[in-house]
């Protein structure tokens, strides 16, 4: 009988060990994953107990803050509709968008845990989220918003040195402070004010795609900047236009021929290197745009690619093209977040921003910079004037007005893409001019 009792004793210990192993599986092995599963109702409840962190511009000015009114947390957006788009909204009823959605975990403080915040949480049962220091600049954003006027469209301003997004404007916009009252109206409003055109708008790039075509041709040695551009069917006219002047003149024929010479595969390769056809790796969701596959291109469609037909790109993507050319062929990594800031603590590095990627030889990029300067001088491209901006404007029936460029010319700081729906080159260039006029003073 005693031996049987001892066997039961051994069984008892084995059972306890088995249970412990099983509990450890769910709590320790699978725990972190399941705890952050969006279907875990604790996440929603956590929000009510967390003082959500603030979204700040690059100088620490608040873009979204939580204030307490009558004991209830309320999210306030001091800049209203100007920052409606990049910052987004956060509503228990309507969900989250923009940076509020993309940085939800950090703002709630579930992303990074420091020993101090953990201790505070243990002692008070309450958590404070992290403040997010963005690369946005409240002033530049406000000017970009004004520059666009009442037109539907978007502006993206990138800091050429870092790849940080200084401004990201989309019009028409919405006021996140009054979201719930105006929701039904916003849903029905013409011009889709809830769509972030800067990141998610996919537009035909028109002649701004010539930048990519010319970069591909120059880097493969197909043409030189001083070679003649066959803009006209009359051979004697060729001598009049060189490639360095061809960007902003009516010259579709020449670029159609250039695409044929470069070839579909090479063109796609260079366009992808510029970041077209893939979503830019910014924190909120951004569109990939569209880049045709070489196998889908017959001869006619390949030629038309020279005029940008068949391609779609977002303002962010074209601003990235401008920034890459401005950096002399290095593509910077676009981003919105500069640092995470615990309350009363040291900024946390949010991983290093990856270094820029060289995609073009310096001479090629310098060549296109020179060509852009020619374009800016020409009547169709004029944007900068005394502000020494290099850029290219485009527009026409059935396509939006564009300005893509950078400034100042000698040591570029800002890369800009402006798109004006139902507008022309002049409207986009005018907006860019207004923006550079002011922004270059604060950023320089």
């Amino acid at each position, binding site marked *: 009988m005693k031996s049987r009792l001892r066997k039961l*004793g051994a069984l008892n*210990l084995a059972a306890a060990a088995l249970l412990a192993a099983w509990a450890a599986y769910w709590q320790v092995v699978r725990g972190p994953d399941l705890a952050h599963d969006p279907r875990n109702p604790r996440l929603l409840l956590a929000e009510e107990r967390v003082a959500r962190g603030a979204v700040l511009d690059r100088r620490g000015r608040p873009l979204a803050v939580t204030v307490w009114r009558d004991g209830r947390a309320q999210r306030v957006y001091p800049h209203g509709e100007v920052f409606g788009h990049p910052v987004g909204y956060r509503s228990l009823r309507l969900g989250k968008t923009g940076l509020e959605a993309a940085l939800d975990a950090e703002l709630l403080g579930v992303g990074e845990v420091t020993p101090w915040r953990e201790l505070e949480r243990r002692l008070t049962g309450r958590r404070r989220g992290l403040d997010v220091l963005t690369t946005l600049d409240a002033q530049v954003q406000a000017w970009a918003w004004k520059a666009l006027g009442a037109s539907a469209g978007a502006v993206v301003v990138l800091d050429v040195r870092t790849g940080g997004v200084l401004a990201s404007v989309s019009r028409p916009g919405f006021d996140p402070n009054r979201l719930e009252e105006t929701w039904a109206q916003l849903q029905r409003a013409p011009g889709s004010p809830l769509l972030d055109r800067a990141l998610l708008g996919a537009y035909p790039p028109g002649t701004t795609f010539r930048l990519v075509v010319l970069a591909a041709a120059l880097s493969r040695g197909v043409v030189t900047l001083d070679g003649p551009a066959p803009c006209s069917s009359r051979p004697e006219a060729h001598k009049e236009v060189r490639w360095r002047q061809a960007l902003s003149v009516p010259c579709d024929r020449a670029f159609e021929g250039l695409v044929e010479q470069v070839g579909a595969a090479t063109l796609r390769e260079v366009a992808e290197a510029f970041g077209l056809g893939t979503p830019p790796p910014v924190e909120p969701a951004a569109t990939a745009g569209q880049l045709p596959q070489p196998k889908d291109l017959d001869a006619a469609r390949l030629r038309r690619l020279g005029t940008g037909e068949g391609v779609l790109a977002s303002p962010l993507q074209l601003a990235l093209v401008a920034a890459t050319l401005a950096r002399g062929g290095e593509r910077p990594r676009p981003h919105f977040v500069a640092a995470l800031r615990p309350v009363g603590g040291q900024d946390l590095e949010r991983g290093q921003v990856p270094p820029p990627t060289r995609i073009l030889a310096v001479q090629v990029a310098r060549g296109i910079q020179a060509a852009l300067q020619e374009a800016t001088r020409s009547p169709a491209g004029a944007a900068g004037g005394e502000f020494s901006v290099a850029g290219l404007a485009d527009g026409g029936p059935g396509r939006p007005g564009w300005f893509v460029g950078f400034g100042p010319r000698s040591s570029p700081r800002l890369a800009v893409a402006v798109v004006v729906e139902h507008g022309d080159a002049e409207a986009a260039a005018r907006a860019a001019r207004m923006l550079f006029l002011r922004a270059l003073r604060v950023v320089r």
Partner: protein
Amino acid sequence: MRRQLGLYGLVLAFGMGAVGLVHAARGPREAPWALTYPLVALLSVPAVELALLRSGFRPDRLLLPLTAALLSVGLATLYRLSPDLAARQATAVCAGLVAMVASAHWVARARAGEGAGPLWGAAFLVLVALPPFLPGGGELAPPLVDLGVVAFQPLGLAVVFLVVFCAFQLARERRAFVGAMVAAGVLLLLVQRDVGGAATVLVTTLGVAYVATGQAKPLAVVAAVFGAVVLVAHPLLPHLTPRVQGWLDPWSDPAGGGYQTLQATFALASGGLFGAGPGAGHPDLVPAAHTDLTLVAVGEEWGFAGILAVLTLYAVWTARVLKAAISASETFPRLVAAGVAVAVGAQAFVVAAGNVRLLPLVGLPLPFLSYGVSWIVGHLALLGLALGVSHRAGGR
């Protein structure tokens, strides 16, 4: 005596600390007098042991302190969920301590040959058959009896009579009689759709029978037959299929059959290694956390560390009862202690396994932890039996 008091000092410092932390975490809404119930119940345990020692009783040194530790985890967890439940549980603990002293004194003197042996079996059967004839019941399995003043599951008390009955009759080798009575009890429970309760009764009996006879194979056949019967009869047990389905694949019906399992899993996962901290979790999101999923509530706020502590307490508790059985000199007390170890140990295992998703949930409470008036009284009475046996064996 002094060592024993030191042990209690440790256990009660922990237990009252836990209840106090939970009280503090519940915030200023909670009236401080709500604390008196669990604190009085916890202090009663060393008081009762002191009284037992004074009267010349020499039970196992560790069993009561271990039980006090388990009770304090349970009371702290219940207090977290609802101070009202904790107050009722505390009252049940005090009643259970009385039952414990009574059963300890009784078993210390009982002889296998004398007394009304079959009456224990009859009492067991009556308790098991009772619920359909009394108000209450309803959808719960095990069935609940609601007498207005108190609502309880008679099975919690029936287990005590079952253990005594089995030990009595098997010590006198009346195997067929035991088999018949237990089979009747199991059938009665199955008719009431209480598969978990039927399994508990069966496993307890098989455990005692194994110790008494040493015949593992025929007993395994009995267990297999039971499993086959449940499998065949499962269309008649409509609550069983979603429960098993919810265990195997909770995502197939996350809002229905899988809901409880998923909420339990999220609670365990959110607890992690050291838990959310007392009062900082959301065990109230888990359905039936106070009865069926108490270990999950422990795991959310005290983490894997808390679950490990509870499992260790159960393992040592069961080992001490088995030790009392081994050191008993006569067959009857030995079988009584074996029955106590199997009844409590097996229930703790099966319910804890349901909590950590090793097995489907059976709907039974965790011994000494979960809310349940009859179970607390019954399990403390079983503890009394073990204490009496250890005293008979020369105790400490």
